[in-house]
């Protein structure tokens, strides 16, 4: 394996990692997958088709968004290429009543929760600092750009669910839980560790979904941790499990169990999804400067979409469906491009209007001043 030999997370890939699909797409559950098989068995072929469709659509969306950035239409783009299975599988494990706290690369999680992914582009086009109202978009909270800050917000939110009795009542249709996304880089932040402490202490209904994509911009996971990251959970007093994050079925099953446990009052848990950031960190990055092409090739050969497509083909899913998904993805991307170009900037009032809930004299005065200043140029050209 071309990955650095001290990469503990990868070194342990063989044994405890939960996997349902082998790299070639054959159904070959690992021994560690036994307890998750009932969750896998909840799925129907219709679910498989949704999983596949969403992975393909977001891959295409991702490419289109990167193109928009290259053409000067976005300030920045954050690719999710390679991480589709971890994201789609975990997102489908949530229920409508749950709350989702993303980092900033979980585009398809937002889509599955009901977000129009063009809203994500609005932030990256520089017309808003947020982009959507979480309550109106599947409780999918705003992206957080300071790494790991959202882990604490998620834990506090989950504490609130406990305080107002919205969880662990025994009714799976209404009991709520929180899932928070972060990564191997963010796992080194103090906030991620404080969130695990608080979550364990208060036994919050919460899943920490850590995508280990092996790179924090240019720094490999081996610099973040000398031991597999999921093992940290034990030190905090909660279950930790490693899943093959390029296996959408395993990602679903493991997360579904963890979320069920959280809603039922069994407390928090940590999932480390092993995956790979095939693209750059952002469009401002150049991974050829620090990454071994052999390592990239190793992971490209484990592409989550290719693997799942092989599985579907093995099930006898018709070629027409697979082709129609490609067409749908192309149409989706074209539509996103059109609508992205139509995004307009806000009025300058946005500078001032929501800084405070109640008027702050300094901000009011400055808004009035700017209005008067800008008005002073009106009709003054001649």
């Amino acid at each position, binding site marked *: 394996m071309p990955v650095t030999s001290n990469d503990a997370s990868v070194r342990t890939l063989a044994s405890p990692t939960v996997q349902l699909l082998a790299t070639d797409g054959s159904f070959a559950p690992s021994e560690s997958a036994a307890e998750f098989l009932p969750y896998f068995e909840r799925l129907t072929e219709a679910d498989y088709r949704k999983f596949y469709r969403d992975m393909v659509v977001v891959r295409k969306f991702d490419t289109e968004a990167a193109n928009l950035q290259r053409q000067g239409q976005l300030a920045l783009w954050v690719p999710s290429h390679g991480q589709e299975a971890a994201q789609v599988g975990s997102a489908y494990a949530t229920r409508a009543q749950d709350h989702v706290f993303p980092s900033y690369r979980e585009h398809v999680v937002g889509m599955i929760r009901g977000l129009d992914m063009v809203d994500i582009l609005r932030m990256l086009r520089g017309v*808003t*600092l*947020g982009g959507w*109202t*979480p*309550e109106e978009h599947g409780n999918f*909270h*705003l992206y*957080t750009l*300071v790494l790991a*800050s959202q*882990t*604490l*917000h*998620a*834990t*506090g*939110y*989950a*504490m*609130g*669910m406990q*305080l*107002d009795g919205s969880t662990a009542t025994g009714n799976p249709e209404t009991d709520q839980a929180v899932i928070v996304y972060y990564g191997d880089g963010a796992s080194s932040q*103090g*906030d991620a560790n*404080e*969130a695990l*402490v*608080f979550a364990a*202490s208060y036994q919050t209904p919460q899943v920490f979904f850590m995508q280990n994509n092996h790179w924090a911009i240019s720094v490999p996971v081996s610099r973040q941790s000398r031991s597999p990251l999921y093992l940290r959970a034990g030190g905090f007093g909660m279950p930790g499990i490693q899943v093959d994050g390029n296996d959408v079925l395993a990602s679903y099953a493991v997360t579904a169990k963890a979320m069920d446990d959280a809603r039922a009052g069994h407390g928090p848990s940590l999932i480390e999804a092993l995956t790979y950031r095939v693209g750059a960190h952002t469009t401002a990055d150049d991974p050829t400067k620090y990454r071994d092409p052999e390592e990239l090739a190793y992971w490209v050969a484990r592409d989550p979409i290719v693997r799942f497509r092989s599985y579907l083909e093995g099930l006898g899913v018709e070629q027409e469906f697979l082709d129609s998904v490609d067409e749908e993805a192309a149409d989706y991307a074209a539509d996103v491009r059109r609508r992205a170009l139509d995004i307009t900037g806000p009025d300058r009032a*946005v500078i001032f*209007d*929501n*800084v*405070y*809930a*109640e008027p*702050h*004299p*300094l*901000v009011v005065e400055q808004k009035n001043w700017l209005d008067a200043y800008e008005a002073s140029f009106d009709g003054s050209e001649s």
Partner: protein
Amino acid sequence: MTMPDTQTAAPTRANLPMAKALNAGLRQAMLSDPKVLMMGEDIGPLGGVFRVTEGLHAEFGEKRVLDTPLAESGIIGTAIGLAMRGYRPVCEIQFDGFVFPGFDQITSQLARMRNRHEGGVTMPVVVRIPYGGHIGSIEHHQESPEAYFAHTPGLRVVSPSNPHDAYWMMQEAIASNDPVIFFEPKSRYWPKGEVDFTAAGTPLHASRVVRSGTSVTVVGHGAMVSVLLQAAELAAAEGISLEVIDLRSISPIDYAPILDSVAKTGHLVVAQEAAGFVSVGSEIAATVTERAFYSLEAPVLRVSGFDTPFPPAAVETHFLPSPDRVLEAVDRSLAY
């Protein structure tokens, strides 16, 4: 407004130390709104290291008074999540110098959450910080970091100087839909003062003339107000009449009483325990110079802590602005 205790016929006035007045204010807020929570280190059965939350755990239980793990970023960060969920958390930071592990969550998250959501969420979070010197303590226990927070858009910053204001300002801060950094002058926790439980008298963000005078206007907040009042007594003996203004609110600053006073006196001295460079006093000096230039008969002068770390307690009296240091500045102002 309601009485401090709706169950029994409580007195309408009481002579209380500020720590007890704050406690009564917190209790009243918890009685008024079941969404109000207390969070912090040692605030439960112990009642906080200054006993400001004493009795609240016993009265309201562990679901409303949360003894948290020892992690300030964790306290603020989870309070943000609770506020998103509709709660009104009141976070205690144990000492001024311990707020910095939570600084990122306060400045990058708490202060901006409403703005990032374009008004879609409110952050009714109060962060209580016992602050300032005069208590002879060790490093990180005597600091005045209020300028960092006043410099941060999205926050409100207040500091009471007396028990009556403490009682009312605490309740008003908790009722605010914006995050409020509430600086409690810990050297004033113990002196008693009269609290009128029937009316606040002054809005949360208003400054107030606490002693009228004609020669020089002196402005300060928190513990500095009592230093200014002592200086005014000493000055009066020398025939100099100081007008003392209690700032009360640091963000926003209510300039009207200051400008009115300067129009009368023509002299302004601003006093603070914090280091003077890029401080609240600097801001007031600049603003009053802009707005009242023709009223001023002398430059606005600042009396501050020095631009050094807070020193060992053995020499703190040399560091902290004293009534004499204030009068030295008053004399310099009048000499123009």
